[in-house]
């Protein structure tokens, strides 16, 4: 069996954090889970976002979501909703919030929080099974979140 979210998936990219990034613990969510402004202070790059969506070592979003535009990349899961057209019915603020911490939008969801570093039970040191050492890094950097938001906005019906 290939493990669900294989050892390489969700590799931590914390080394790329910049001073002007909003720190994960400081992200402000609206009542409905939206995040107003860019986490990195920069615009996102949709091409980079695409790569993050499909790579096991990064977002690995297609592990749970089908996206017709990404059909050339194999093995889309069906745990989450199909994301076709999501850029049309969700705002950038909503998408950013869903990525940073989807539990603020969908209570109790299975979707992981990609920009959150505290509040976990027995956090591990990546996929080693050992206890985490020191501070956790978010699954994606602030800029990577912005890149994925930018890509999702290209998904229009």
């Amino acid at each position, binding site marked *: *069996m290939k493990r669900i979210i294989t050892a390489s998936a969700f590799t931590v990219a914390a080394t790329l954090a910049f001073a002007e990034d909003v720190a994960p613990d400081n992200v402000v969510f609206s009542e409905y889970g939206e995040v107003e402004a860019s986490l990195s202070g920069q615009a996102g790059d949709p091409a980079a976002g695409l790569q993050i969506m499909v790579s096991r070592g990064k977002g690995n979003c297609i592990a749970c979501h089908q996206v017709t535009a990404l059909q050339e990349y194999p093995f889309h899961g069906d745990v989450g909703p199909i994301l076709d057209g999501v850029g049309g019915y969700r705002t950038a603020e909503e998408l950013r919030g869903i990525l940073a911490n989807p539990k603020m939008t969908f209570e109790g969801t299975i979707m992981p929080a990609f920009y959150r570093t505290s509040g976990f039970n027995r956090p591990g040191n990546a996929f080693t099974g050992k206890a985490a050492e020191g501070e*956790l890094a978010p699954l994606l950097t602030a800029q990577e979140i912005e890149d994925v938001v930018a890509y999702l906005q290209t998904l229009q019906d």
Partner: protein
Amino acid sequence: MKLLFRGGVVAGALFAALAAQADEEANLVINGDIEITVRTDAPEHVAQLGTIYSGWVFRSDETQSLQMDDFENPGMIFVDDAIDAWNTVDGTAGNSCAACHGEPESLAGVRAVYPKWNDEAEEVRTIAMQVNGCRTERMGAEAWKYDGKEMINMEALIASVSRGMPVDVAIDGPAQSMWELGREIYYTRFGQLDLSCANCHEDNYGNNIRSDHLSQGQINGFPTYRLKNAQLNGVQSRFRGCIRDTRGETYGVGVEELIALELYVASRGNGLSVEGPSVRN
């Protein structure tokens, strides 16, 4: 196939995914002789599942067929190794397992009821703990490593003589508090991905995560021969792997939490047949 899933959406997804990867209607008969219950009504304490399924149901046709014939099941080679160990004298008392237990078949039915409360030891014991109890206390031999090769082989032998018998672990009486601890752990989210066993194996069985087709995470098939690592795998090692995959800190094999979890997960399969050593991917 009788489907009692809660959501129509889930059921639809299950059919779609299984159609591509496995035969969801298939029945398992081993060696044309041992009938295995791979789907049945869920026991009352997991009524939310409606129907419980062996992990075998979710595997590809090829993987499924490997388990239908002992000559094709790679796990059976290790059963042969364990038969040798069964008959071998070990330890200061000069005993083999056979000296007291006779044929391995004398342990038929044992796999089906473990983990189980042991009155003398006043604890819930797994089969591995019982085997090591016999080795250290009755044979004067060294304990085998928990989930180590010798132990897993012996567990495969002990499971094999119970194949076809319904899993029936007791969850009440003195075992109840451990069972409750196991249930609590089952629903606890672990790791940076913040996922519980239930998130994957209760809410999403039948769905795919990337290329993995999720089962209910039942343990009636243990030890399992996995094509992925080409060896027999113990229950608690499997649990450890699943917790690790949540980017979580796992537990060691043989600790209270995993014994409790083993008891609880076993009980979710009450009514399925013992089918170890099974074949999985």
